[in-house]
């Protein structure tokens, strides 16, 4: 890992900035949203700066390292590679969109935006951490604002939804913590990099077995469980539809846009590097679960009538592709050239899909929030119709987002999904084939939504449905533009993602 | 011996007797017509002066005790523990005399004070006595005075009843004591303590004679009565409750000091005789010939230990149930007697045990006088010594409440008050003598019982500080009484923080011995 130890501590700054912003917003009451917007913009700018400072070879850059509690192997160790930096940008972007969507918070706006900013800080923290403790701290801490955001501003069934969300995720975290404690006790280290190197050489397995016995598989399962709840992987997904639909839309944007990526990121940063061999041993059952996630997510989406639930399940489906790609590339044994290429493609696809889905899903929920808002609280599929006539710009923008979600070539959603399938087919054609079903069902669902919401005759009450006004257009246009851009010129992202992928794959052993 | 020696050694006693007669003369002769308070004040002042002069006479004793004619054995000891105890007796007498001021339970002030002084004389005698007959004489002088004092509140039924009980019980135990002494004389051929010890120690025949056991039990009964040890304690609760407050204070403090000083004397005599090589200890009854160095001590230690354990346990447990503060103090006195008897059972030949016991009884006596003084103040206003009479005292007289806090916590053994230190010293002395399983267990029991005692002392303090007052009348105490009480409380605190003070003072009496 070459890194820049000297110089400006960008990563600390970008994590600390939302915390400060939260403190200010807490006492700003009516101006809280403004404070949050400024903070969001600053963070976004910082995230781009970080992207530009990445080293070119895909290794970790912008490192910051300070001892913290040496007796426990805990260090303050931050750093990002292409994956991490991309997630940081995503988090900043989604947070900004979320704040933008929240323009009618009547009740305790100061607290609301403070919590949102704290959540953003938690996201930044976990995407830049290179020491388990630090990572786990932010992983846990991000739960609290999310819980309260759902609990205090959510829909009618928010209580149980919030509790379920919290309990599931906590349970997963406990499993994670225990597994990592075991690793620490055997190796004395909590550093991701160091542990990954040990795993690659086989030393990790040996040390754990020497200290604790043949528990590596259990540790792997523990770690997987923690992330399985977060992503989510079926059947640990049951908290998601309730949480997504009861949460206020800005919060849902954050949940689906960024928080779910924490799980995938965790798989890539922790599970695969450290427990690659164990995962490859249980690859088949994991693939089965991934495929189930994909298909079930799409199928369930088709059955919903509440738009938020439709896209909640659709998120499950889209993230299922990431899981598919991740598990598929854990091919046991040494990799020959063909396998390596497929693995690279799959991994590239996974990372792109993380970003693209985050963007698209956030945008979609933004639009749903608009619908809800302008219609006085309605969000059922059948509540609307023919909105293309009174609100063409709205229909246009949302339509683009919908198509991106569907995976239309030329939009960003396509690239990720294409690469994933490109990589997974050679590695496990069965899984890939069955997952195609997911694609098809999703297509059907989205087309149905377009049909029902935008096309068809216009009912009386929607004849004067207000279109997007100037400010909103200005706000969403860049997002839509980005969808096009990434669909047509994905190289701007792949420029840093690909070297990272190659670097990671070179260091992973299955 | 010649009478000059006798006179010199018994100067303090003589002074007290003169003072007693003087008080009688002044009161009955000159102050017939005066008001009660004046008479009380003058009689008390005379009594105090008498005690003060007696203390001043004590240094004369440093020239040596009173020996038998033609022998070097002492009839009356001087210096060392005897003088310390005598000073203690005199100081405590002074304090109880001060408590008399302001009280109105009797018109016969002169008689009261002279009886007090005469009883104090008896106490001085037994503190120094080394001969059985002298012991008996002194003991009777003390006891008879105490019976009379108990009955002094003529208007109170309780006073008369408890005095009667005290007298009957006391008379019986005096008879036991004399009987036991007669056996000891018969066995050893002498009435001198040292001679008796020597005789008993050197002869195996005497050692295992059943007569000896009978004698020891009798003596223990007699002396146990004096210190209120279980099962000879039955007089104590009634007497403490019935006697007028100054008298009860006197009984609780002075007679205890004297009696324990006597026990120290017996223990010292035994230790002396056994020589420097051996520590006195307690051996579980072994079969076979008695070990050479445990002659007289074996059965004696056993008896005293039994008395100690019984007193500790019974005294504390019985106190838990009391609703009258005076009876509570009586049972706690029984318990404290138990602790002290422990140190007398494990008596070291060096001065360690002596110091520990003396320290304890002196400070305990001081604290008890204070406690009775406080109770008397409350009694005077509210007419009873029930716990409920103390309700809300912290509002009604803050100073008195503070004094009670100090005194009762000291009795419970809470640092940094002197009561804690006295207990610690005592237990350390016991363990310093013998470190076997049995002493440890008994000390553990003592500590546990001490913990129990905190409960009932806190009950009183709870009434004083915590529970709301039923009756809000302020409790006014006589200024002299209050100042005496405050002085006692201060002494308790200071001696507790600087325990070395009293210790150093006591060691000075042994310098040169």
């Amino acid at each position, binding site marked *: 890992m070459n890194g820049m130890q000297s110089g400006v501590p960008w990563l600390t700054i970008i994590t600390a900035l939302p915390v400060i912003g939260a403190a200010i917003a807490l006492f700003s009451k009516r101006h809280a949203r403004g404070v949050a917007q400024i903070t969001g913009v600053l963070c976004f700018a910082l995230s781009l700066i970080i992207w530009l400072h990445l080293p070119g070879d895909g290794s970790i850059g912008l490192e910051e390292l300070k001892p*913290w*509690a040496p*007796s*426990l192997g*805990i260090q303050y160790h931050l750093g990002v590679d292409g994956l991490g930096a991309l997630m940081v940008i995503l988090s900043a972007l989604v947070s900004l969109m979320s704040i933008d969507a929240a323009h009618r918070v009547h009740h305790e706006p100061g*607290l609301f935006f403070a919590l949102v900013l704290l959540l953003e800080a938690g996201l930044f923290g976990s995407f830049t951490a290179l020491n388990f*403790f630090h990572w*786990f*701290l932010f992983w*846990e*801490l991000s739960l*609290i604002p999310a819980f*309260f955001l759902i*609990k*205090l501003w959510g829909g009618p069934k*928010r*209580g*149980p939804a919030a*509790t379920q969300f*919290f309990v599931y995720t*906590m349970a997963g975290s*406990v499993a994670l913590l*225990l597994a990592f*404690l075991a690793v*620490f*006790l055997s190796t004395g280290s909590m550093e991701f990099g160091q542990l990954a190197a040990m795993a690659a050489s086989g030393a990790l397995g040996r040390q754990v077995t020497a200290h604790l016995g043949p528990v590596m598989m259990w540790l792997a399962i523990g770690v997987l469980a923690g992330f399985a709840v977060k992503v989510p992987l079926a059947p640990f997904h049951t908290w998601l539809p309730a949480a997504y639909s009861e949460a206020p839309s800005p919060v849902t944007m954050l949940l689906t846009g960024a928080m779910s990526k924490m799980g995938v990121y965790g798989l890539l940063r922790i599970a695969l590097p450290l427990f690659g061999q164990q995962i490859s041993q249980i690859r088949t059952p994991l693939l089965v679960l991934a495929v189930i996630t994909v298909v079930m997510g799409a199928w369930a989406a088709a059955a919903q009538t509440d738009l938020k639930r439709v896209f909640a399940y659709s998120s499950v489906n889209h993230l299922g592709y990431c899981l598919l790609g991740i598990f598929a590339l854990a091919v046991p044994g040494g990799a020959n050239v063909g396998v390596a290429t497929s693995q690279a493609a799959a991994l590239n696809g996974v990372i792109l899909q993380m970003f693209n889905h985050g963007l698209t899903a956030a945008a979609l929920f933004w639009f749903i929030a608009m619908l809800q808002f302008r219609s006085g609280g309605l969000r059922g599929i059948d509540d609307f119709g023919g909105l293309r006539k009174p609100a063409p710009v709205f229909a246009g923008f949302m339509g683009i987002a919908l198509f991106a979600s569907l995976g239309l070539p030329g939009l960003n959603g396509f690239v990720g999904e294409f690469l994933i399938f490109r990589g997974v087919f050679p590695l496990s054609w069965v899984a890939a084939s069955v997952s195609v079903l997911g694609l098809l069902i999703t297509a059907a669902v989205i087309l149905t939504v377009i049909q029902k919401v935008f096309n068809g005759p216009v009912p009386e009450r929607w004849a004067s449905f207000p279109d997007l006004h100037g400010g909103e257009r200005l706000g969403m246009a860049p997002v839509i533009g980005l969808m096009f851009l990434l669909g047509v010129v994905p190289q701007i992202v792949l420029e840093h993602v690909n070297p990272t992928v190659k670097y990671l794959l070179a260091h992973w052993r299955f | 011996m010649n009478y000059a020696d006798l006179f010199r050694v018994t100067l303090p006693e003589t002074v007290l007797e003169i003072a007693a007669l003087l008080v009688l003369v002044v009161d009955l002769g000159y102050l017939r017509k005066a008001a009660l308070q004046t008479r009380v004040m003058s009689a008390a002042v005379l009594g105090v002066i008498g005690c003060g002069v007696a203390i001043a006479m004590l240094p004369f004793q440093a020239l040596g005790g009173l020996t038998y004619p033609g022998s070097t054995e002492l009839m009356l000891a001087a210096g060392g523990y005897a003088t310390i105890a005598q000073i203690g007796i005199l100081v405590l007498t002074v304090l109880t005399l001060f408590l008399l001021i302001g009280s109105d339970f009797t018109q016969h002030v002169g008689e009261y004070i002279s009886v007090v002084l005469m009883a104090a004389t008896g106490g001085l005698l037994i503190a120094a006595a080394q001969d059985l007959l002298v012991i008996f004489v002194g003991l009777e002088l003390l006891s008879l005075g105490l019976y009379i004092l108990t009955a002094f509140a003529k208007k109170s039924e309780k006073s008369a009843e408890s005095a009667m009980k005290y007298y009957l019980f006391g008379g019986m135990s005096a008879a036991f004591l004399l009987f036991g002494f007669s056996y000891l004389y018969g066995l050893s051929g002498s009435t001198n303590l040292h001679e008796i010890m020597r005789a008993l120690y050197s002869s195996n025949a005497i050692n295992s004679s059943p007569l000896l056991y009978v004698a020891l039990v009798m003596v223990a009964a007699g002396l146990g009565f004096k210190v209120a040890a279980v099962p000879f304690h039955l007089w104590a609760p009634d007497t403490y409750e019935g006697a007028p407050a100054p008298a009860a204070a006197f009984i609780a403090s002075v007679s205890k000091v004297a009696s324990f000083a006597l026990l120290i004397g017996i223990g010292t005599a035994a230790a002396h005789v056994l020589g420097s090589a051996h520590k006195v200890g307690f051996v579980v009854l072994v079969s076979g010939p008695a070990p050479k160095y445990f002659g007289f001590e074996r059965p004696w230690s056993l008896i005293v230990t039994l008395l100690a354990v019984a007193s500790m346990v019974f005294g504390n447990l019985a106190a838990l149930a009391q609703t009258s503060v005076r009876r509570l103090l009586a049972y706690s006195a029984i318990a404290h007697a138990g602790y002290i008897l422990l140190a007398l059972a494990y008596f070291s030949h060096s001065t360690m045990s002596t110091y520990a016991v003396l320290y304890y009884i002196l400070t305990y006596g001081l604290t008890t006088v204070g406690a009775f003084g406080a109770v008397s103040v409350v009694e005077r206003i509210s007419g009873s010594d029930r716990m409920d009479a103390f309700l809300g005292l912290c509002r009604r007289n803050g100073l008195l409440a*503070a004094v009670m806090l100090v005194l009762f*916590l000291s009795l419970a053994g*809470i*640092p*940094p008050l002197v009561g*804690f*230190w006295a207990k*610690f*010293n005592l*237990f*350390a002395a016991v*363990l*310093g003598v013998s*470190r076997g399983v049995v002493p*440890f267990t008994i*000390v*553990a029991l003592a*500590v*546990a019982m*001490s*913990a129990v005692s*905190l*409960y009932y002392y*806190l009950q009183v303090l*709870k009434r004083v*500080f*915590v529970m709301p007052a039923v009756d809000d009348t302020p409790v006014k105490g006589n200024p002299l009484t209050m100042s005496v009480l405050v002085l006692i409380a201060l002494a308790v605190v200071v001696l507790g923080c600087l*325990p*070395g003070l009293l*210790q150093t003072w006591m*060691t000075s009496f042994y310098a040169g011995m």
Partner: protein
Amino acid sequence: MLAWTIYISFAGALVLALLPRGNAALARWIALAVAVAGFAIAIAGFAAGAGQGRVTLVDVPWVAFMGIRYTLAADGISRVLVLLTGLAAVAGVLFSWNIELRTNEFFAFFLALIGGVYGVFLSFDLFLLFVFYEIAIVPKYFLISIWGSTRREYAAMKLALYSFVGSSMVLIGLLAAYATSGSHSTGLVYLANADLPVSFQMWAFPLVFIGFGILAGLWPFHTWAPTGHVAAPTAASMLLAGVVMKLGAYGCLRVAIGLFPHGMDPWGWSFAGMGSWRDVFALLALIGIVYGALVALAQTDFKFVIGYSSVSHMGFVLLGLVTLNQIGVTGAVLQMFSHGVIAGLLFAIVGRVVYERTHTRQLAELETMHLGKRLPFAAWSFVIAGMASMGLPAFSGFVAELQVLVGSWIAKPWWTAAAGVGIVVGVAYTWRALQKAFFSDRLPTPDEHPKTGWPKFDPITWPEIAATVLLVGATVIVGVYPRVLLDSIEPAVKSLLAGGMQ
């Protein structure tokens, strides 16, 4: 310099006791001044002593003929605990700002208690330590019996008697150690190096450990704690759970483990899997952790939840102590500090902020009051305190509990598993209390409730805010930068474990 914490506390107590009645405001300010002064001295002493090992403050003969000296000294552990005491004192005074009944007496007893606690942490003579330990008992009794609430007289007496019994056991051990070592001296250093015979240590250790353990809430001698905490007035609960229980743990460490280390050697035979006193006490500590947590989960009174959680957290401390390795014992000491602050905060919120306004502690009733909306200060402070109590990272409890877990793993792996269960249940009961008291979903919501019928609560006063900020700040600072305390604790623990206190 640290010795002055003791002296000014007692002086302050005396001054307050002599104050004329009726001037509550003066009493408060005097008490605050004394507490802040003590805290300032504690911080100064902590900073000055950092990296210094054991510093002797005072060493003069006291009762010369028995070898008892008035020895005050401070090593890293003492300094940390003195800091905790100062913090708790200031917070306690602030949270008692609204006491009107016999105010000067309240603060007099309070400061006397604080003085005794400072004394225990700074004593390096066993006798002196015992004296201060006992001094602390009487103020506790009066604080609870006069100003307490539920069943206060019973609770106060129970607490006083249990403490006294515990200290009696310690007294016996003290006497025995003194006698066995030749009756020369009661200095801690002397006794630690006195080579007491192993057979003696074998029974002295459990005696003294239990004696101190009673005050530390060792199961099954903990029953005074929940009753006592609930009955006590807020400041007293804060001190009791926050500092006084740590006296017991400190005694276990400094006296029982420090003087009788061989008492924990294996017996040579084992009974039900336990082969030494160490195993016995570890088991008791673990039972305390899990039992305390499970019982807390079932409580209907808010304060009882916190009371039992204290028993559970102290179990962690005791477990850490008996691991006898560097990391476990360090974690135990850190947990002493951490829990002291957190427990103080929790009791303050439940007692002062909530109870004194709502006049109920029953969770079922609080559920209907929507305190999340009506008392946001209490709600959010409790969220933070609850997170700290659960052991979430970024708060002091996390590092402490992690160290104890690692330490217990090194000692005996199954201990860690059992302790882990305690943590999980801990999350559960904190969660439950939080939900029920502040964020319940019961209808009607405040918005739906007719505006007229909703009574207003007293506003949050500045002392409450100040004290909350102080305590939250302490736990966050230590949570984010534990080195601030660990740098002092670790060397002290190392030298203590290395045997003897040279």
